[in-house]
């Protein structure tokens, strides 16, 4: 074969070869991965790339909207009547509970007023709709249709009608990312509704039941116990249903019992969720008295007193 001794004209020049591009971009990708997992430096870049996601958000919502519009249009009058009757029945069925709660609520309010405690729900609750879930089987995340512009903040708790869904972990201007309580190592401080035993529920990733870790084998726990948030972390308000105990293994030969739970929230069923603001969960830090302020300036005395 004869070698042509001239360089190809510029016409054919297409920049660096695919191999060198791959080497460069591959290293860059590795660097990004490293920076993202170790240092979380890249939230800014994420926000920029997320600009592309606005049309995506609309596009994802469109088929559902169109479908529900058509379904509504053709939904028969009879279905609506049935629905109405059912809802009426449910309303009546729940009336005693609601009235009971009203009374309890009043009593609670009086007691709290006595104790001078901030009201738990200050009203910062935002209704959101699930946009999409990740494709990938590892992902324990959902995206909802309100973000920073709608008042959602990172760290807010998210609940649906059945229980705690998770926590807002990233906020884009028009959408937010919610990490589910089943996510690997996601921790929710809980207590057993029946006995008041406190523990922490850790998510275990896809397809595995969350578990209560660091709970003594002697703790008062039974299969079927309901777990509610204990509110200790200041993220989740007190008393939201989280999970149900499905198995208790006390004979592990370890210091702690192995307790598996089943989350109550309908992660893959619920379309509508509620974001509870953090202010609602945690009372604002009381203002420090003037003398303490002065003492702090003088030295570090009085800071803990």
């Amino acid at each position, binding site marked *: 074969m004869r070698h042509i001794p001239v360089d190809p004209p510029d016409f054919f020049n297409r920049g660096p070869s695919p191999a060198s591009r791959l080497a460069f971009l591959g290293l860059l*990708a590795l660097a990004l991965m490293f920076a993202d997992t170790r240092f979380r430096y890249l939230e800014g870049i994420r926000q920029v790339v*997320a600009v592309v996601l606005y049309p995506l958000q609309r596009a994802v919502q469109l088929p559902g909207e169109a479908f529900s519009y058509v379904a509504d249009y053709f939904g028969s009058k009879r279905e609506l009547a049935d629905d109405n009757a059912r809802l009426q029945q449910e309303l009546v069925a729940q009336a005693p509970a609601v009235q009971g709660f009203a009374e309890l609520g009043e009593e609670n309010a009086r007691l709290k007023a006595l104790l001078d405690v901030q009201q738990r729900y200050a009203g910062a609750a935002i209704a959101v709709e699930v946009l999409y879930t990740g494709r990938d089987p590892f992902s324990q995340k959902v995206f909802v249709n309100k973000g920073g512009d709608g008042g959602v903040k990172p760290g807010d708790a998210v609940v649906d009608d059945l229980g705690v869904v998770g926590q807002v972990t990233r906020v884009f201007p028009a959408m937010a990312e919610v990490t589910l309580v089943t996510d690997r190592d996601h921790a929710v401080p809980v207590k057993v509704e029946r006995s008041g035993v406190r523990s922490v529920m850790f998510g275990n990733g896809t397809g595995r039941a969350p578990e209560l870790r660091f709970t003594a084998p002697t703790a008062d726990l039974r299969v079927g116990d309901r777990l509610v948030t204990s509110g200790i972390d200041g993220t989740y308000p007190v008393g939201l249903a989280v999970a149900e105990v499905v198995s208790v293994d006390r004979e592990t030969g370890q210091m702690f019992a192995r307790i598996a739970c089943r989350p109550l929230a309908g992660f893959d069923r619920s379309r509508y969720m509620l974001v509870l603001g953090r202010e609602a969960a945690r009372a604002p830090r009381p203002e420090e008295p003037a003398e303490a302020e002065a003492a702090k300036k003088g030295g570090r005395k009085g800071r803990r007193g």
Partner: protein
Amino acid sequence: MRMMPSVSGLTPASSDEILRPVHPGFIALTLFLGLVANVVPSTPSVSLMRPDFLAIVLLYWCIQEPRYVGVGTSWVVGLVMDVAEATVFGQHALAYAVLAFAADYFRRRVLRFPLWQQAVQVAALLAICAALVLLVRVVGGAPVPRWTYLMSPIVGALLWPPLSILLQWPQRPMRSRGER
């Protein structure tokens, strides 16, 4: 088949057909639709089988139009995918860049085969892509998934023939009614 233009549209372009140049806007549109197909909500049983549509579309353009879509474009698209799916930044970027490189390496060979044989090779390429994503995950501490993880590249390869015909559609020469 030549007699019926409507039917000829449903078959892959034969080698004597001269395709019209592709519109870059069309490439962008299909990539966007691939992204939408990747994130649209579905039931857990379906999402086990769900192929990586974006990877298939990227692969198609890398093989057919390497002047428009190559390693760089795939890398950027991968970054967008990372943000959309809230995965570790750069993970899909790396996987798609490797996919594009492999596509560029094999493209002259792949194109010589009929569509269903192309699909077999595409399955291998998609599996490499999925394996890279898995590798990053496992290094990051995720548990190894069940064998169903393999379904996604296989389903993706099965979708290759219909998707290639669909993506080639706007480039087919328009045939007037009286011709041939």
